[in-house]
């Protein structure tokens, strides 16, 4: 692959790569604390995966049903006698996996389509814009409900292998296939702003193909948008997964905070509150941390606030 050196004036570094940025982020106490919380959740999820020293959430024991918090069961037990702490921890695994996979899918689609639409313009832009305008016109929850509903229990044939879309997998797809719209629009805007930039023109004058211009030159410069959107999108995916699971369209065979909340509806009538509390606090914690971190990230990466370093 030929390396095309861009001569002349050095182009400004992409916002995401500017050296001061990460240092500034590190200096903010809010960013550090929220990052610590996020890491804590990641560790929880890992714990959920390994199951080390965690009571098996599947163990059903009706004798011990509806027990309040106790040393044996720090978060109590639910209607089937299952340990709520275990369910919460594994719920963390579920939530984070869903949010992560959905985010990756959405970002991939959004970034590629945004680059294509912004840079190539014309018919390509027209079609992509039409597609995302269409998706945007449907109220968000309605859209994901529709997708999740349709994708439930479907199988798709990919390269001779059959993938069965069970509960939770349908959710990943549904969220990913609908969540790319916001990012695509943002990226498209950024690309349009930059496509007449000097470094782009220079690269093109040296014969760089459109593909190369898009991915080697433009993409790094819009990375900061991607990073912030990814972080903030993560939160909305977690909430969406909760709602979907609550409505019965999501995780069925693994614990999920949404399902826990669903179960807690009946429990409350009996004065059993611990499952609801556990799930709510869990969701609250990660959402807050992600919001704060996302804000700090956005402030650090914002070209406007960066300029005042004189």
């Amino acid at each position: 692959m030929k390396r095309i050196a861009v001569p002349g004036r050095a182009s400004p570094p992409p916002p995401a790569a500017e050296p001061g940025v990460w240092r500034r982020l590190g200096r903010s106490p809010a960013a550090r604390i929220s990052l610590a919380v996020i890491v804590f959740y990641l560790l929880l999820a890992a714990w959920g995966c390994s199951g080390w020293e965690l009571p098996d959430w599947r163990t059903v024991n009706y004798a011990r049903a509806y027990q309040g918090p106790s040393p044996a069961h720090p978060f109590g037990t639910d209607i089937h006698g299952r340990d709520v702490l275990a369910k919460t921890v594994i719920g963390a695994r579920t939530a984070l996996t869903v949010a992560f996979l959905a985010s990756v899918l959405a970002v991939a689609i959004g970034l590629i389509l945004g680059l294509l639409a912004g840079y190539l313009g014309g018919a390509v832009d027209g079609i992509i814009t039409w597609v995302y305008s269409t998706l945007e016109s449907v109220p968000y929850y309605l859209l994901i409900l529709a997708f999740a509903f349709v994708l439930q229990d479907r199988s798709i044939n990919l390269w001779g292998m059959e993938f069965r879309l069970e509960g939770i997998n349908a959710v990943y797809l549904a969220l990913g296939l609908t969540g790319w719209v916001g990012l695509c629009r943002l990226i498209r805007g950024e690309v349009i702003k930059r496509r007449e930039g000097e470094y782009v023109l220079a690269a093109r004058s040296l014969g760089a193909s459109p593909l190369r211009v898009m991915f080697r030159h433009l993409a790094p410069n819009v990375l900061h948008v991607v990073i912030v959107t990814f972080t903030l999108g993560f939160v909305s995916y977690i909430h969406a997964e909760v709602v979907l699971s609550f409505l019965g369209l999501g995780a069925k065979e693994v614990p999920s905070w949404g399902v826990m909340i669903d179960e807690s509806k009946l429990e409350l009538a009996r004065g059993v509150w611990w499952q609801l509390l556990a799930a709510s606090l869990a969701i609250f914690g990660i959402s807050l941390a992600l919001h704060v971190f996302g804000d700090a990230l956005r402030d650090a990466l914002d070209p406007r606030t960066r300029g005042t370093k004189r």
Partner: protein
Amino acid sequence: MKESLRIEGLRISFPSPSGELVRAVEDAGLTVPPATALGLVGESGCGKTLTGLAVLRLLPPAARLERGRIFLGETDLSELTEAEMRAVRGEQVAMIFQEPMTSLNPVYRVGDQVVEAIRAHRRLSFASARHLALDLLDRVGIRRPRERYQAYPHQLSGGQRQRVMIATALSCSPRFLIADEPTTALDVTVQARILELIASLRERERMGILLITHDLGIVAGETDRVAVMYLGRMVEEGATRDVFARPLHPYARALLRSVPRLGQGRRRLEAIRGNVPTPALRPSGCPFHPRCPLMIPVCRREIPPLKVYESGHRCACFRAGEEAT
């Protein structure tokens, strides 16, 4: 002097992104006698705009006025309450800014914005205020004022917008006008007209003017006195004629030499060597010493005091008046 605008010992600081306090303006002072135009000149970032804003207490929220007194006649503006300050703004001292497009509210008609300024200080009915506004628009040279009154800022040209700003500033016949780079954003031909307007208004209204600019040409043409700032400090002040004919401070001299002039034949433009340091990395002693051709050891250690030379010509330099060899 009574009835002049006098600034003494101004110190303004900003928190830098890393948290430390940076002194943007240090021990600045100047005097604008009544009905006189004083040019405050210096390179970008030397603190001249901040000095102007400080008079009306319009500093950006992050900036801090640490020290200094501002006298309007006998009154110390820095001691006034906010309510009293509001009475000064627009009525005793008015200010116009650099960017007329963004300095006018885009959703109001320009005429109404002038009226707003009038009614802030005068108890007039809307109709009388409107009448006065039309008169003002006419006085600042806007043709067909009745039509232009109804226009929105984006419908006017840059020059017209600046005229509207001037009309707003004049509406209550202030004693002083602070003009912060009023023509920088305008075309050269329009610049000349606006400056003419300001000059004529100064004559007619007997207004004192603090003209903040980086353009020496404007200073030469429009001001009676000039004050030169470097890195937040006053380095020279005096009658424009005197300072231009015989600049005492090496910086002022270098500035004047770097401006091309008609009739001087072919001559190499002399740039001042080095760059303006950031206020965060303020040099010790005299701020200009790293770039000064006349630097001696004491310049590094001590800040030169502002000394008076003949007839109100002041300079802050240990070697004022000496030529470089």
